[in-house]
């Protein structure tokens, strides 16, 4: 039941906001309340509502097609739902009192996107999964196209077309799998029972992988991403990159790897090569950027590349690291986008060339920025370190022959990320203040609070990541048992 509640709260909130015609301030306050309610439910789920009845929900729906409205919250789902509710709450808290054009519609679309993403994270019926996959896309398209920058219309349309194209291939895959199931059902359980030949697995692998690769995005399917991140309003960008890209990782972990383990192994080298090339390529591009948002966008591609490589490492350690990284990357990148938004709003520019010397007048902002940026390059004692450490350990244990190539090239990404992050910190905060930056930047109290929570989470889980690891340990073990190549080959 709790899974249904998690979907219903933002859905009702969104419907209310769409119909609401009144005071602007109230709209953003209402959105904050809704996101707080989701967070409370999520907290209750973590500490009290642990019974299986609470964590699953199933209702007949489209019975003639063989689909049902089935939701289930396993370790992966818990992690991502937690990330979603925390991110939404922090973002809305940060946005409190902000003047946004037509705030009711803005927050309504955001909450609708939350419904879509939570649905993707929780559904265990492939058709339902596809439904939510698209449902998450439409609000983002409207948000980015209505509140975005000057080039928003063509840029977001490219984003839409790209993701839509990917998802229709996945739809063919889903329909094909459904036709192969014994009971003509879309349920994940029935699909898992199909025995596919290696060739069929390969076809299905690519049909699904393209959808996820575009969403992530993995090099060379990434071209929509920097433009979209740049042109979207920053709050939307933060949701896109903190929560929405996790849909792609979830697709890999819940659908692609367990359903097509042999194909994942067969094509693992190709995907990992793409992933590590993407890491280096995106990091090099990030070093060249002079626009703050584009820089963060490219750094995000590099991080996602590492996570993708980890998914195809096909071992327990990498899965553990990846699952942890899902959460930490989301929190860190959310912090980065909030800071980028503050800088752009207060100074009126996001060009690194015209910034500089902010540290002298605004030490608080500088401290926040440096901590979050260092977490972004996974310095020890920050949350991302644990995840990245596990990921690299896992990649070194990949069943592929080229594990050392992937680990080495991927490792280059760590160095490069330090280069562009430190360069960014220097360009924005140090040096001589100019006419733009010689005024102190005042942070509102709610902005300080939201950022403090993020920094708190970074430091806490940097020192003590065990609760998060425990949360996903079962999922990771089960995934490994389904994708363990040595035992799979022994069986066949």
């Amino acid at each position, binding site marked *: 039941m709790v899974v249904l509640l998690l979907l219903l709260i933002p859905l009702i909130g969104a419907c209310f906001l769409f119909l609401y015609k009144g005071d602007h301030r109230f709209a953003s306050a209402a959105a904050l309340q809704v996101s707080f309610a989701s967070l409370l439910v999520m907290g209750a789920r973590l500490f009290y509502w642990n019974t299986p009845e609470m964590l699953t929900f199933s209702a007949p729906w*489209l019975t*003639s097609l063989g689909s049902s409205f089935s939701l289930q919250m396993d370790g992966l789902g818990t992690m991502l739902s937690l990330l979603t509710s925390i991110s939404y709450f922090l973002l809305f808290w940060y946005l409190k009192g902000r003047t946004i054009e037509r705030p009711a519609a803005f927050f309504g679309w955001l909450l609708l996107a939350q419904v879509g993403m939570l649905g993707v994270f929780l559904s265990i019926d492939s058709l339902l999964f596809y439904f939510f996959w*698209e*449902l998450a896309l439409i609000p983002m398209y409207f948000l980015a196209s209505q509140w975005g920058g000057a080039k928003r219309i063509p840029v977001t349309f490219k984003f839409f*077309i790209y993701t839509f194209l990917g998802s*229709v291939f996945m*739809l*063919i895959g889903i*329909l094909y799998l*459904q036709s192969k199931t014994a009971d003509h059902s879309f349920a994940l359980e029935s699909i898992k029972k199909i025995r596919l030949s290696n060739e069929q697995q390969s076809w299905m692998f690519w049909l699904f992988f393209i959808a996820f690769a575009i969403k992530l995005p993995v090099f060379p399917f990434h071209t929509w991403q920097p433009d979209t991140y740049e042109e979207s309003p920053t709050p939307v960008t933060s949701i896109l990159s903190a929560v929405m890209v996790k849909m792609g990782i979830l697709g890999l972990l819940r659908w692609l790897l367990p359903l097509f383990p042999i194909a994942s192994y067969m094509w693992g080298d190709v995907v990992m090569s793409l992933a590590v090339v993407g890491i280096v390529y995106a990091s090099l591009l990030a070093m060249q950027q002079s626009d703050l948002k584009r820089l963060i966008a490219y750094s995000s591609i590099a991080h996602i590349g590492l996570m993708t490589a980890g998914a195809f490492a096909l071992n327990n350690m990498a899965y553990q690291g990846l699952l942890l990284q899902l959460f930490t990357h989301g929190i860190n990148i959310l912090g980065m986008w909030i800071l980028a938004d503050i800088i752009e709003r207060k100074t009126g520019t996001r060009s690194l060339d015209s910034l500089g010397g902010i540290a002298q007048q605004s030490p608080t902002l500088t401290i926040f920025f440096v901590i979050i940026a260092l977490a972004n390059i996974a310095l020890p004692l920050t949350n991302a370190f644990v995840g990245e450490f596990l990921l690299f350990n896992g990649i070194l244990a990949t069943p592929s022959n080229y594990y050392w190539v992937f680990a080495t090239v991927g490792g280059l990404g760590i160095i490069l990320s330090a280069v562009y992050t430190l360069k960014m910190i220097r360009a924005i905060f140090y040096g001589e203040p100019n006419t733009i930056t010689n005024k102190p930047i005042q942070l509102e109290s709610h902005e300080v609070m939201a950022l403090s929570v993020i920094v708190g989470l970074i430091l806490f889980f940097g020192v003590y990541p065990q609760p998060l690891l425990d949360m996903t340990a079962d999922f990771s073990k089960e995934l490994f048992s389904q994708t363990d190549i040595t035992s799979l080959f022994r069986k066949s």
Partner: protein
Amino acid sequence: MNALLISAILGVLLMLSSVFIKNKSLIHMLALIGLAILFILNLAEINGWLLFEIDVKGMLRFDRYALVMNAIMLASLFFYLLLSGRTMEKVGPHYADYLALLFFICAGLFMVTGYASLLILFLGIEVISIPLYILTGSDKRNLKSNEAALKYFLLGSFSTGLLLLGIAFFYGARGNFSATVSVDPTVVASSLQLASLLLLLFAMSFKVSVAPFHFWTPDVYDGAPTVFTSFMATIVKVALFAAFVRLFEDTFSLQFSIWQPWVAGFVVLTLLIGNLTAVFQQSVKRMLAYSSIAQAGFMLLAVYAINGDSKEGLLLYAASYSLATIGIFAVLIYLQDYTFEGFNGLAKKQPIVAASLAIFFLSLAGIPLTGGFLAKLFMIKAALSYQPWLAIVAVVMAVVSVFYYFRVIQAMYFRSADQVTQPEFPKAFPALLLITALLVVLLGIFPEALLGLLYF
């Protein structure tokens, strides 16, 4: 059977009504009541309640499928008359006559969905076509309307000729007109049989505007008064598709190895030509004409894949496509500017109309939560069981369709109005449009509500 006879009678009554009733809104109201009666009678027939017991000598067969299809068409027609019925007044002075012609066409529609003999199919198509020629040319002062009517008439008669020849060959090969008994390929595999099969295939393809027989469609749809284009592109088209499916599923099902490759070729051609040409249109009306060709490509998949899934899918397709297209045309009629720019900034001035339009376009593009998605899903599933590449062509073309459907959404929501004059809609219009849009969404969430009619 109920609806067929009553619709013909209502047509006559409406034609006479113009002599006695001068008030046009009263005539409109009469037509709506007539439709409601037809709908109820049709529902009653689904539940086995018949007004008349007429021996039709096996020429007509109103099974569940035909009756549900009729119900969908009647419901669509009802919304069509509600949304754009009054705008027919602007076309010409003969308001009651237009409505009467619509009711005559209705009788034809019921004949083609329920035929059991090829003679009835022929009669039905003629009963549909002749009033349509008149409606196309009803805007007599407009040169384009005249041209469209003439073109439609000439090409339409030509294809009817093909149809008749096909039926004659059919009779020659089999000695009867019965459409219900499947042709046994082992007994009569004569050239006469083959010729009749192909002629019927081509003639039907022409009628539903499938490529390469689609050339009349853009000009006729563009030239005809918009309110009648809406009717032709939706209700008439889906009825003919129902007949098309029936012809090849019942009559020629055992020869499917002959016609299936042809139909597959037509599907690909139709999808490619319809979608790729629609991308380059500047007028929304012409874009919708090509979009209707593209959608016909999807519906043709129901003919291609003869199985239960695709038949159910066609019902869903008929309902969601008709409602969405009728809604879009209903708005288009009120706009002065038929280009994409004419929609600029509509969301600010008319939020409800814009939201409904957005739902219609999302449905046509096949985005989940709308009826259009499930309809396409059924079709792709059906295609996948025969030819995977056909399904891939279909979904890629569905992505291409996003290019032109979303241009309108972009214009409405993301661009600001550059023209001063905004369209004026009647008072109840936004609410009615919203109800239509909600129906489209409902089809996407609970298709069982419609498909359940088939079985219970």
